[in-house]
């Protein structure tokens, strides 16, 4: 991988990427359209609710260099990789789930490993790096990738991602194919010392009456070896889930990037007649995270459940925006989002419920709870309701506060140290959300990962206190 000099985020890069990947003409055109929108869109207003917790100065677009994807990298394997050779989050997932329908492992350099259960392959299931799928399954890819622009949004980074994506995954579940064992997708931002930009797209299509479970892991395995630079690397994603009539799709995402990463993500769920989507977003890493999760309930009977768990430490900043857009009658959406913050970390949660005039009998619920674990941590929660229909059930609720001292006292009265008691309360707080995600073993896997993070975090805090005590003496 090479770093090319200055102002790499240009329209010329579109042609370079398109030609290096031998992309079809329609895709270059989509990229150019997105670029025009990107240029026409205002830069993020640092005072706007959705941006004000994010340190935009930590990102210097003029310094960012896009990574060069090697389309020839990667191999199609007949087996899963040896878990021992993967980062701990991934090996833990392999161990916990045991049976995997398909597996893709990518870095910004390209695809490392692709595996798909041969029986599923016979049934027409597709799992490919997106750069290959746009040629090999051009019809499908074109049908869905060109839909994106109809859903207007003004996240400049997401538009940039549409224009310049150089990484991605394509998953296709044919009509009536029901798959219980999950697909495991992974992206490792290997990174190096120069400010890099990775743009990636995930396209998931669940055809009529199909069923699939997807687990996506985002991490930077060598984050510890990277010197913190004053300006961050950018990982920007545009993930789209098309859930066709009667289909059921569950999608979980774990984000555990290092402190050198500015993470921008937009997840769009398009839910059709009587279809159901589950989302779970878990964030325990990255210096800055700006994430939009949009659910478009497009046809009658569509319903969705969006879950979120954020654990912030150090100076991490999070801005999560959820959008529940009801565009058809008898649709349901439910959001449960929980945030726990330590140290100087900050979070903003903004939840928008939009109900169109024709979306009668909508049920839309939203809950956001924030736990502050230190005096320096800050959390904000803003619900926004735009309801045009008159026969709807909508509710929202938010809380921000410290750990209940009565809970701590109760646990400590049973012999648990304050540190253990706090860990218990925070894990319990998260468990209430994690346990709602319907894919078996996800709870145990994430409990393990979050538990470990909590443990080291609380440990380090206890150690700091001990050190401070020694210094005082």
């Amino acid at each position, binding site marked *: 991988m090479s770093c090319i000099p200055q102002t790499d985020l240009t329209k010329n890069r579109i042609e370079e990427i398109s030609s290096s990947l031998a992309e079809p003409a329609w895709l270059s055109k989509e990229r150019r359209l997105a670029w025009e929108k990107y240029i026409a869109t205002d830069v993020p207003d640092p005072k706007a609710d959705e941006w004000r917790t994010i340190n935009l100065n930590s990102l210097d677009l003029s310094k960012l260099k896009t990574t060069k994807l090697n389309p020839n990298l990667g191999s199609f394997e007949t087996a899963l990789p040896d878990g021992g050779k993967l980062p701990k989050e991934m090996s833990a997932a392999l161990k916990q789930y045991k049976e995997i329908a398909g597996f893709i492992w990518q870095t910004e350099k390209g695809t490392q490993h692709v595996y798909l259960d041969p029986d599923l392959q016979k049934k027409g299931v597709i799992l490919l790096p997106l750069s290959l799928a746009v040629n090999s399954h051009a019809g499908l890819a074109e049908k869905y990738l060109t839909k994106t622009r109809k859903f207007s949004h003004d996240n400049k980074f997401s538009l940039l991602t549409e224009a310049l994506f150089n990484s991605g995954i394509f998953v296709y579940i044919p009509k009536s194919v029901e798959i219980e064992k999950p697909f495991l997708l992974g992206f490792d931002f290997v990174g190096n010392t120069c400010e890099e930009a990775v743009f990636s797209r995930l396209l998931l299509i669940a055809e009529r009456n199909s069923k699939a479970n997807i687990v996506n892991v985002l991490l930077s395995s060598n984050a510890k070896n990277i010197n913190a630079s004053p300006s961050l690397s950018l990982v920007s994603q545009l993930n789209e889930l098309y859930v066709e009539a009667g289909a059921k799709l569950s999608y979980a995402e774990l984000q555990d990037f290092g402190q050198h990463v500015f993470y921008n993500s937009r997840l769009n769920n398009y839910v059709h007649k009587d279809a159901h989507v589950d989302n779970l977003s878990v964030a325990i890493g990255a210096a800055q995270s700006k994430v939009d999760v949009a659910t478009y309930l497009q046809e009658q009977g569509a319903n969705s459940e969006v879950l979120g768990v954020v654990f912030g430490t150090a100076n991490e900043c999070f801005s999560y925006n959820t959008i529940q857009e009801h565009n058809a009658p008898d649709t349901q959406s439910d959001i449960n989002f929980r945030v726990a913050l330590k140290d100087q970390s900050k979070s903003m949660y903004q939840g928008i419920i939009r109900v169109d005039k024709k979306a009668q009998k909508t049920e839309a619920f939203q809950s956001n709870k924030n736990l502050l674990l230190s005096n320096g941590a800050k959390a904000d929660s803003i619900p926004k309701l735009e309801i045009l229909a008159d026969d709807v059930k909508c509710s929202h609720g938010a809380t921000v506060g410290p750990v209940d001292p009565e809970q701590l006292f109760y646990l400590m*009265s049973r*012999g648990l140290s304050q540190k253990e008691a706090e860990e218990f309360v925070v894990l319990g707080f998260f468990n209430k959300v994690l346990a709602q995600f319907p894919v078996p073993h996800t709870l145990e896997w994430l409990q393990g990962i979050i538990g470990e993070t909590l443990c080291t975090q609380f440990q380090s805090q206890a150690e700091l206190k001990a050190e401070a005590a020694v210094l005082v003496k």
Partner: protein
Amino acid sequence: MTKTILTIKDLHVSVEDKEILKGVNLTINAGEIHALMGRNGSGKSTLSYTLMGHPRYKVTKGQILFHGKDLLVMPADERARLGMYLAFQYPVAIPGVSVSNFLRAAVKAKRGQDVPIKEFRAELKDNMTKLGIANEFLSRYVNDGFSGGEKKRLEILQMALLKPEMAVLDETDSGLDIDALKTVAEGINSLASSDNAVLLITHYQRLLNYITPQFVHVMHNGEVIKSGDSKLAHELEAKGYDWITQELVAQA
């Protein structure tokens, strides 16, 4: 030879600068069951929270000694590991934390080492059967959505597993129907031994029909104003609290 477990000397306690306990004295020896009675607001629960080390209760004067060791310098977890136990009147819910995980962590903390899972299961099962607790209880979240009776049973189950030397049971009888009261009382009776001691806090005689204390103390306005044997509890049941306070006035 009597072995003293707990000594409370001239204990004064304030909550938000209001003095609640005004010089409590009490000595509890191994093998003894004490009942502490008194009206609502007399200071019984303040005493129980203070014994366990709740940070809201400030000791302004006096001592609490556990086998001669000063408890007041220790946070709640240290007291617990030493052998103090409080069965709460209103146990708090810990949503998202399963009863089995919680019990295992508490037992590990108290015994100072992990208990092999098989052994722990067997011990748990045995105690749950005795207390009439269903298996599905273990996967529920601690006190989350529990009925009053379920909460009290969980308090006694913890006591059975943690085997404290000094157990303080705060209004463990309140909110229990007669069957639950019997089960819980049987549980307490089976746990009381010559090596440990129990302090029952209650304002009814009801629980004392099933557990016979050797000592009964009456608390009034932050002080223990009368002590006696189990007959005192019956006297209170028959005559109410007024005669004691009147006696006090007459003495003064």
